[in-house]
């Protein structure tokens, strides 16, 4: 493939992200409408989309604000939910580390599940494209603009229909999360982690400042790790080699699933 110009690379990145953009639109709309059910002012919702730009942590924050929460739990939850981006960044690092730090900071800011899926697939096909960072930027910025537009639409929509709150719009978040969780439960350690986290979250729900959430996540991860290692010791999976194929594959699996279905959420 001939080397494209900056503009052409940027446009190609945006175009290849189009299915993700369509898929993320309803989640932006739902997020915006959800803000109307929380103590936040509408402009706080837009501020969150503009500055945080990480769908799942925004959904979770909306839920936490609705039930009352302290700064520490809010920020710790944000940290945990977004940690997966470190795996994405580690995966893409070889393609950006020659850039100056400002470029790397901007690309870090626009990195999302969707842009990771599109961009990592592109770098897989064109590992040496000198304009790859423009492709990455085109993908990330088009997602960003899309997220702002649909957040705003949701904010206005939610404000126009205040009864949405009494109807329980927050069930949209429950349904969205189920759609993300269930496919990942196909493998036993992840299924065990899910069940343990859910049980613990229910039992610890009365803990102050939503600390029960953090406790449930810690217990779920511990149970999953135990299951994973017990499985390896039993010879179900060879411990030699990288021994890490399972988890290395996890983010890719998810993005693979999402890119196929093009129904990925900004909610992830």
């Amino acid at each position, binding site marked *: 493939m001939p080397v494209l110009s900056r503009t052409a690379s940027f446009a190609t990145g945006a175009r290849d992200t189009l299915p993700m953009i369509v898929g993320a639109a309803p989640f932006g709309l739902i997020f915006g409408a959800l803000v109307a059910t929380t103590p936040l002012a509408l402009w706080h919702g837009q501020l969150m989309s503009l500055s945080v730009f990480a769908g799942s942590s925004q959904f979770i924050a909306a839920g936490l604000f609705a039930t009352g929460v302290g700064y520490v739990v809010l920020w710790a939850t944000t940290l945990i939910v977004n940690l997966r981006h470190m795996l994405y960044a580690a995966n893409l690092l070889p393609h950006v580390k020659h850039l100056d730090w400002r470029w790397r900071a901007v690309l870090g800011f626009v990195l999302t599940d969707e842009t990771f899926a599109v961009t990592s697939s592109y770098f897989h096909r064109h590992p040496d494209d000198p304009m790859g960072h423009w492709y990455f930027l085109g993908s990330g910025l088009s997602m960003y603009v899309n997220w702002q537009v649909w957040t705003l639409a949701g904010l206005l929509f939610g404000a126009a229909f205040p009864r949405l709150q009494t109807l*329980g719009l927050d069930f949209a978040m429950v349904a969205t*999360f189920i759609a993300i969780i269930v496919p990942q439960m196909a493998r036993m350690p992840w299924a065990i982690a899910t069940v343990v*986290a859910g049980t613990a979250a229910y039992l610890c729900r009365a803990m102050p400042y939503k600390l029960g959430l953090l406790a449930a996540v810690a217990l779920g991860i511990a149970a999953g790790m135990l299951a994973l290692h017990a499985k390896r010791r039993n010879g179900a999976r060879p411990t030699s080699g990288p021994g890490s194929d399972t988890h290395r594959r996890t983010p890719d699996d998810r993005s693979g699933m999402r890119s196929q279905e093009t129904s990925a959420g900004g909610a992830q």
Partner: protein
Amino acid sequence: MNYVVAILGMAAVTFAVKAAIFVLGDRVRFPEWLREALSFVPVTVLTAIIVPMTLAPHGEGLELTWRNPQLVAALLATAVCAATRHQLLTIGAGLAVFFAWQLGVLA
């Protein structure tokens, strides 16, 4: 709570997480156990959020009853997702049952 401080704090945490590896480059190394642990983060966090909302939607006791629309719709969404693996269909079916239950069955 000051919501602007809360939101900008979230933004700072998120940016630090997303950009750290890019900015620090090869100076960061991921131990194997951390990679493993991180792979359990999405399912555990999301589940820990929705299970209490579904089982005890009024923040009180367990509501294991057909009169709990959150529970009925969540079970149905789980079944749809397990059967089809289709995200938008799962969300649509879950919402449809949720609203139908509230406005139809229980009204």
